[in-house]
């Protein structure tokens, strides 16, 4: 994950109409879209909502001028683990269906059910589109802007201050992580090498992690001492100046919110009409 950090920040530093929008607008839209998607019941209604939301996401992503390859790479980095759990759903029964039709019977009493496959698809659609909006948010918003946006939206000062410093140290750790990994590689140390005794591998990893922590802390201490020299004090908080949203940003936020609320509602209401 830490390797992605530098690529994400590089993407966030690019320029496009979406990159220039205030972080608060992007945070509000991304969170609203995720909440709306999760709020849709576990039913096939999510297919329609999902397609419309994904179309909306694709329009926004196209405006970012980032490649779809970038998006796919980030999705592929997130999906594997939970993709396996979604895949396993096809063998399981759950409380959302009362009747199950067996599609395939496998040895050891394992069966694949039609309803379970449907449920797995429902989960997959929700999951992929939710992370798409997170990828859109993080790929188009600098970490510092996101923090300022969150502070303006009411994030407690203690969190804002600690998060600000944490983000700074994340990059220090990122560099340390790279350096230490390179050092381990030059010494031909591989934590997954079975020829090495397991306790030895664990001890080396423990010392590596501890070294990384101490070196980063000492780097942090130096930064902190410079902060003290520049007037930082116990009661200092991250200063965030007032920044009203522009007319265009208000309009974009309003239209997006209406869209995000109206689409699931319209699809839900139309399902009654079809019945």
């Amino acid at each position, binding site marked *: 994950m830490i390797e992605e950090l530098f690529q994400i920040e590089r993407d966030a530093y690019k320029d496009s109409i979406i990159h220039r929008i205030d972080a608060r607008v992007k945070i509000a839209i991304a969170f609203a879209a995720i909440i709306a*998607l999760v709020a849709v019941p576990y039913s096939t209604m999510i297919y329609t909502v999902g397609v419309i939301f994904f179309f909306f996401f694709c329009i926004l992503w196209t405006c970012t001028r980032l490649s779809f390859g970038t998006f796919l790479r980030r999705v592929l980095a997130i999906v594997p683990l939970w993709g396996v759990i979604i895949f396993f759903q096809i063998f399981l029964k759950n409380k959302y269906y009362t009747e199950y039709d067996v599609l395939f019977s496998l040895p050891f009493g394992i069966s694949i059910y039609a309803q379970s496959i449907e449920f797995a698809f429902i989960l997959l659609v929700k999951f992929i589109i939710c992370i798409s909006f997170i990828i859109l948010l*993080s790929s188009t918003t600098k970490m510092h802007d996101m923090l300022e946006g969150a502070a303006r939206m009411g994030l407690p000062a203690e969190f804002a201050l600690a998060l600000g410093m944490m983000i700074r140290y994340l990059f220090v750790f990122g560099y340390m992580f790279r350096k230490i990994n390179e050092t381990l590689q030059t010494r031909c140390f591989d934590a997954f090498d079975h020829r090495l005794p397991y306790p030895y591998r664990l001890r080396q990893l423990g010392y590596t992690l501890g070294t990384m922590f101490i070196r980063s802390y000492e780097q942090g201490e130096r930064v902190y001492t410079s902060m003290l020299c520049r007037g930082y004090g*116990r009661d200092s908080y991250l200063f965030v100046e007032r920044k009203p949203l522009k007319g265009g940003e208000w309009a974009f936020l309003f239209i997006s919110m209406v869209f995000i609320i109206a689409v699931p509602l319209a699809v839900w209401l139309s399902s009654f009409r079809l019945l």
Partner: protein
Amino acid sequence: MHIPDAFIPIWQGAIYWIIALVFIALALRWARNDMNEEKLPLVAVLAAGIFALQSFNLPVSMGTSGHLVGGALAAIILGSPFAAVFILTLVLIVQAVLFGDGGITVLGANIINMGVIGGFVGFYTFKGLISATKSMPVSVFFAAWLACLIPALACAVEMFLAGTFPLTEGLVAMGIYHAIIGVIEGFVTIAVIYLVTSVRPDLVDTGVKATAGA
């Protein structure tokens, strides 16, 4: 263990958020009272450090790997379970918002699992064992092991309540997997705390210093 969006219904996610907010408020109170000028960089570094520690893939078995959780480490170094809640909240926010690792609607559940349960289990297991055994390695090992295992079991229960994974299979799979990762987390946490207490004993304030060589 980072539950993503969609795996827990919105109303259950809201309940977990409310519970998590109570602990976040208590953690904020800890930060206001105890996070002084000296501790702030340590908190920030520890948060970034736990983020980095979670990036290290550790070998488990049969080609699988896992990562550390770090709740016990944070609670032991900073001497309070609320420090773990505060730090893990920061880590989980960054992971969810920047990397999509863990969801937004389920962030409350993830904070409860790794921050609240991990932090409290880790801290009080450590406190109990260090006074009983006087051995830093033993206390840290069991604290870290339990702080990895119990949140995983809680995660399995939450997925069962959400109807997205059966209880028995979830408890067995998560339990076995994290019991193994927990052993690794235990050993690595001992090594990290031993190294930190040897090189920078001033950073640890939970009585580990006195027994570091035990």
